[in-house]
């Protein structure tokens, strides 16, 4: 096992990695920007090294700063968390070059996973279903031919995109030319790679992803799947494990497809394979691979009892998986709510600032992953995630009931958070009945909720006038 691990991230995931290091008996060295030197992870880790100014480009996104920090602080490994440099092959190759172990897959696996077209082709070659569509389309004409074949509406996606970025919905032939031109230009500007591909658009879909763990000895197992259909602008708000209501055969096929794909990639570490389930057709197809630990990993941990981040450390240190596929048993149900410093009432405007009160819930079946504390000043420089609230139960209903109570008692003052929205979401009949698809939050839940809260605000104004 490693002696000293550089935790090259911040916020709640830094806390998570530090905790895993502690559990494994490894010393943690937090790589923090100047703004984060007085953060909770900085007090929790064994040591702290400052890697630059608040601006992420100069610190958390600076490969040289992160690797040099590992050398200066005498660390034998770097854990990149999620986001930032976690899926940048440059960090992996720099680690290899300077004798530091990267806690994650190889640079090649990251590159292959990051190229969405290549990943799609790999899936197809393994007979893993892919969305009807194409590989690279270079012209509007080529795109039109594919779109005619699969039927409109279609999605135009960037090969170097992913996570919802670089995607465009094209409702019909008339919009295609402009879409190809604009999407290509945007992709080139944003990712330095203007390649596009076309995919059939599924109206009623569920986002189902499978957690995979693989060691250096070729052992690849899945830890079941998650449903992450609660999305707004392709950003996940809520996640569940397992994906309830999936036909058993479909569930089996999805899990198996994930393992097949990861094995073929020679993947080592923790990774996730994302699929789209066509609710009407009861079919599934491969979307993309995420070559890092994910934000929503706790729901899988809660239903399997497996510590995914500790397994990452063990795998990276060269240990073999201590369990096989048959040892992986999913019990009960878990649901996670992302608590962001955003105001859903004001169109999710960011709301950084000083927390005068921070009082998360606790108790059996309630887990809170956070870096916040009363008196913490949420900085405006980074993303808005404050905490993840994960609730579990023997059944999905129990998990939801527990979540409703936990959300009620979660107090945050004075900044706005997405708690208000989650409190309504967890009680919604569509959620209870398991009718949520990827369009649900934006098309069904949010407009009605916004209207209701606006009405309530008016009523309050009138009453106090």
């Amino acid at each position, binding site marked *: 096992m490693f002696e000293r691990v550089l935790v090259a991230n911040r916020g709640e995931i830094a806390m998570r990695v530090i905790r895993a290091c502690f559990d494994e008996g490894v010393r943690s060295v937090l790589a923090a920007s*100047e703004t984060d030197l007085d953060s909770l992870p900085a007090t929790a880790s064994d040591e702290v*090294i*400052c*890697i*630059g*100014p*608040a*601006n992420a*480009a*100069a610190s958390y996104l*600076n*490969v*040289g*700063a992160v*690797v*040099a*920090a590992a*050398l*200066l*602080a*005498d660390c034998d490994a770097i854990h990149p968390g999620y986001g930032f440099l976690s899926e940048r092959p440059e960090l992996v190759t*720099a680690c290899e*070059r*300077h004798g530091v172990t990267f806690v994650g897959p190889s640079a090649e696996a990251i590159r292959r996973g990051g190229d969405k077209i290549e990943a799609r082709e790999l899936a197809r070659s393994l007979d893993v279903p892919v969305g009807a569509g194409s590989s690279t389309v270079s012209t509007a004409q080529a795109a039109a031919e594919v779109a005619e074949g699969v039927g409109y509406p279609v999605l135009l996606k960037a090969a170097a995109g992913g996570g919802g970025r670089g995607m465009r919905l094209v409702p019909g032939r008339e919009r295609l030319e402009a879409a190809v031109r604009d999407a290509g230009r945007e992709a080139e500007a944003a990712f330095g790679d203007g390649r596009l591909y076309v995919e059939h658009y599924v109206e009623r879909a569920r986002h189902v992803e499978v957690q995979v763990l693989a060691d250096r000895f070729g052992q690849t197992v899945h830890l079941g799947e998650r449903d992450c259909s609660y999305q707004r602008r392709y950003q996940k708000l809520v996640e569940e494990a397992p994906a309830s209501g999936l036909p058993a055969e479909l569930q089996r096929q999805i899990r198996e497809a994930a393992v097949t794909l990861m094995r073929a990639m020679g993947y080592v570490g923790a990774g996730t394979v994302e699929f789209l389930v066509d609710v009407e057709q009861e079919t599934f197809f491969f979307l993309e691979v995420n070559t890092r630990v994910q934000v929503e990993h706790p729901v899988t941990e809660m239903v399997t009892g497996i510590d995914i981040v500790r397994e990452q450390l063990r795998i990276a240190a060269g240990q073999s998986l201590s369990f096989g596929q048959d040892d992986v048993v999913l019990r009960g149900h878990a649901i996670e709510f992302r608590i962001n*410093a*955003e105001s859903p009432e004001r169109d999710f*405007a*960011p709301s*950084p*600032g000083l927390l005068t009160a921070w009082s998360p819930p606790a108790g059996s079946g309630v887990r809170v992953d956070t870096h916040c504390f009363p008196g913490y000043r949420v900085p*405006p*420089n*980074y*993303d*808005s995630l404050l905490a993840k609230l994960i609730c579990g139960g023997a059944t999905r209903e129990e998990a939801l009931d527990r979540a409703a109570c936990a959300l009620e008692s979660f107090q945050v003052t004075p900044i706005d958070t997405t708690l208000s929205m989650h409190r309504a979401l967890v009680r919604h009949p569509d959620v209870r009945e398991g009718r949520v698809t990827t369009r649900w939050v934006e098309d069904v839940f949010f407009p009605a909720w916004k209207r209701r809260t606006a009405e309530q605000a008016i009523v309050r104004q009138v009453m106090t006038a």
Partner: protein
Amino acid sequence: MAGERAEFRRVFRAFEESDWDEIHLSLDGVELHLQAAASSEVTESSDVYGPSAASQVLTPGSVPPAADATTAKAESTSTPVGNTADADVVRAPSPGIFWRSPSPGAPPFTDVGVQVEVGTPLCIVEVMKLMNTVPAPCEGTVVEVCVANGQQVDAGQALFLIRPGE
């Protein structure tokens, strides 16, 4: 102490062998700042120092030197032009990071002496990765840029002074 020197040597060597631009590390009260020279020959330069007196043009996403915010402000903000007594103050709508240009390397939205109209974009205040463009609230001439590029601002902080009128 020998151990520390060994680690510093490893860092210098790694920096030399790589194509890294700039790193600024701080560990146990020791600061290490390495910056690749602009010329094709990569020379190593290291100094142990406190707040830097150097300022540099910063743009969104660029790697800024570890400059002390107040020093950078004194050096990079413009000198007020003309009479600022009757000027309108444009304030930050939220806390965030002040950017003078729409994107890295692009020319700034505006500058001292520029004529603006109601709605003319003046700057971006970035909050949690959201880029908010701040528009001019009135017609007039920009007479002062109050904040340095890349500086963190509080809600309500003065960003520009605009003298209304033609």
